[in-house]
């Protein structure tokens, strides 16, 4: 009985609370309903309509300029990153292509230079061989003249031996005159020409001349034509019999100063 009475009391209290809440809400609603707003002014209607007309008159270009799109930040960031990556790759490709092009161009330049060099060297070799042939021809002519002179010299020597020892006279016919060589290449501007009895008798090729030049001995003194040629264009130096002598021929100087080669045999001035 007591419990039922308690429950009834509780229920009554709850109902009274709910009632009080509802009453309060109703009171609040009635209070709030007294807040009435003003109606929008007719000026607003005109304003809105004019804005609508203005919007309709906007040109396509104006709409395009003032248009905007909303992109979420992660998507925008990812697009930006992709864009930067593509730019980076494109730049990297361009630089690699540039390097390749530079390498290719440098290779081409080197190849062309090499080709040019080989062509020039071939041309030089051809010129060299031509010049060698020409020189050998001239030298052979010289040799012929020298052999002739040598015969004359031997005859003269025999005749002189018959004469008195102190009365040795020079004769212009004994002069070994080297004809001025011409058409010589610059490569052989300074060439030592061996001058000997054996050499006089045989025709030497230019290679042999070069080989002789490469092996000079102390018994075969080199005589500078530059210095000797200044003395009345006469090249005078002592000559021993049965020795090989190398006579330096400076072509440029020979061209400038025609040389008269005078050989002194056994300290006897014999031309």
């Amino acid at each position, binding site marked *: 009985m007591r419990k039922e009475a308690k429950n009834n009391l509780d229920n009554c209290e709850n109902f009274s609370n709910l009632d009080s809440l509802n009453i309060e809400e109703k009171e*609040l609603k*009635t*209070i709030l309903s007294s807040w009435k707003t003003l109606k929008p002014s007719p000026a*607003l209607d005109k304003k809105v309509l004019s804005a609508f007309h203005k919007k309709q008159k906007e040109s396509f270009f104006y709409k395009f300029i003032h248009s905007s799109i909303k992109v979420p930040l992660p998507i925008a960031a990812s697009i930006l990153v992709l864009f930067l990556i593509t730019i980076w790759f494109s730049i990297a490709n361009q630089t690699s292509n540039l390097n390749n092009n530079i390498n290719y161009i440098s290779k081409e330049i080197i190849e062309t230079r090499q080709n040019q060099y080989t062509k020039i060297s071939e041309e030089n070799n051809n010129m060299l061989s031509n010049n060698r042939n020409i020189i050998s021809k001239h030298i052979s002519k010289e040799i012929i003249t020298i052999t002739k002179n040598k015969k004359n010299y031997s005859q003269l020597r025999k005749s002189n031996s018959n004469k008195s020892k102190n009365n040795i006279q020079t004769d212009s016919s004994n002069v070994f005159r080297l004809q001025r060589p011409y058409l010589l290449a610059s490569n052989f501007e300074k060439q030592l020409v061996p001058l000997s009895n054996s050499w006089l008798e045989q025709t030497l090729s230019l290679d042999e001349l070069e080989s002789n030049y490469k092996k000079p001995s102390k018994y075969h003194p080199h005589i500078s034509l530059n210095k000797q040629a200044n003395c009345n264009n006469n090249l005078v130096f002592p000559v021993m019999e049965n020795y090989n002598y190398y006579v330096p021929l400076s072509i440029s100087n020979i061209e400038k100063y025609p040389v008269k080669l005078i050989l002194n045999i056994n300290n006897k001035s014999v031309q």
Partner: protein
Amino acid sequence: MLYQSDEVLLKKASKGEEAAFIALYERYKNRVFSFSYRMLNSIEKAEDVTQDCFLFLIKNPSRFDSKRSSFITYIYSIARNLSLKCFNSHNYELSVSDFEEDYYFSPALELKQVLDKELSLVIEKAFSRLPSNQKEVLILTEYEELSLSEIAIITTTNIGVVKSRLHRGRENLRKLLLEYYSNNNPFTLVRKI
């Protein structure tokens, strides 16, 4: 034109049909204006928000999706966002001093009207003291008579949050308007200076 749905009117208005725009505007201008006015307590700001709201509607018609929400929740959400933007952008301060002068120095008003306006001023003050999230929920329920689910869509929250905000808002309002509860008839209230 008057019997066409909101969606159709919106499409036509966005294409430039003036009649459709006017029909849509007439249908919702009072609601939008009253809501924004109660949020901002300023006629000028409320008019600006109303204008911007309708212009936004016709500028971006594709944003409205009838499958996701009704047109009324969509237009209220636009008005709510614009009001909050206006409220936050200018360090907005709610003031009712201008209205007080208008109310108490107009001689043509009768006593009842004066009392009504006084009460509305009191309520306006009380609302201005509420946080904006409680304020918007209370306005949408008490004045715009929207359901809790619609308010949840407009405020981008769930119903539970709306209920809690509503409850707190009502409690705060009761506290603020406590002195007017002494008599059950609020129309007999006398302003206490």
